[in-house]
């Protein structure tokens, strides 16, 4: 089981992620990068919703807390993926390299979630779940990579022939 200290660290590291994606939102707004702006706004909302719900779960027993935390993460991130894809299709935006890379990273996150859930179903709901560690140590860095890509891509203001951002 993950130590209390690390749980606190990850809980409050949400603020760092939110701050960085807010930075990406503001810079991409300044550079008129529609794709990165919409995605980083959605990502910011996703982390905020997850954080608010997680603080709501904190009074529940550990097993249910962890279970709901996983559920929230999966559904919120799938929704961000679907909404962003729909925006790109309906508004005829070019899906830039950065967004494509982020989609793949989100897919990796969701795969780890599926693996974790499968393990958990086999081990039983109230077993001490080692997968919590595995899941956290894979998903948290991947989330920070996503935010890093957002900030990097929002700084680049280059547009192509059709007026869409290259990054």
């Amino acid at each position, binding site marked *: 089981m993950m130590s209390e200290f690390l749980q606190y660290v990850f809980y409050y590291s949400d603020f760092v992620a939110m701050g960085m994606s807010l930075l990406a939102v503001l810079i991409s707004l300044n550079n008129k990068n529609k794709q990165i702006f919409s995605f980083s706004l959605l990502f910011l909302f996703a982390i905020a919703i997850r954080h608010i719900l997680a603080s709501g779960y904190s009074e529940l027993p550990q097993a249910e807390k962890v279970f709901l935390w*996983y*559920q929230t993460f*999966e*559904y919120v991130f*799938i929704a961000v*993926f679907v909404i962003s*894809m729909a925006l*790109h*299709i*309906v508004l*005829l935006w070019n*899906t830039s390299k950065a967004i494509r890379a982020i*989609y*793949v990273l*989100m*897919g990796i996150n*969701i*795969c780890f*979630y*599926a693996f974790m*859930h*499968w393990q958990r*179903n*086999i081990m*039983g*709901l109230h077993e001490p779940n080692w997968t919590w560690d595995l899941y956290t140590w894979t998903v948290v860095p991947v989330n920070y990579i996503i935010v890093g890509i957002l900030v990097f891509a929002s700084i680049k203001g*280059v*547009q*192509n*022939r*059709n*007026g869409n951002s290259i990054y």
Partner: protein
Amino acid sequence: MEIQFINYLPVLFAAGVVLVLLAFSLIERIMKRKVVVKLYKGAPFYEAYKLLLEHDKAVKSGASARKLAVIEQKSELYLRQVVGLAPAINQGEVVFTSAQYQQLTDAHRILQKNINFIKTDMSDEERIIGSTKLKFDCLQYGERYCTDTKAVKADAGVNVEQSMQ
């Protein structure tokens, strides 16, 4: 502990998302085509877009020369329609219909995008040459079409040929 179906629901969702991710480019292409058809049905460039798409498809699938000739004939007919939409010059004044105005606005937008492209995407040397050429083109165009309307009427055929080159 008994494993119920509902416990597998998130896994199924995840599998669905992964499938969507793998098929993403295909889904995006198909959906975008549908959206374009819906949005631009009434737009002046829709016909050209459709013809281009048809031509692209025919070339990609390796269609016969006869089929390609039919498509080319269609696009020729379309181009003749567009030429018919050119503005009329009446007593030194250029008269537009609203359809012509729409077309010219579109053309202007495309030109503006190309200018933006020249400014951002090219190397320094290419950009200087490109924008200089563009300026010369604009000056020549202005001299031909915007100063002396009688001259334009006289060598209209010649000018069209020159501008095609």
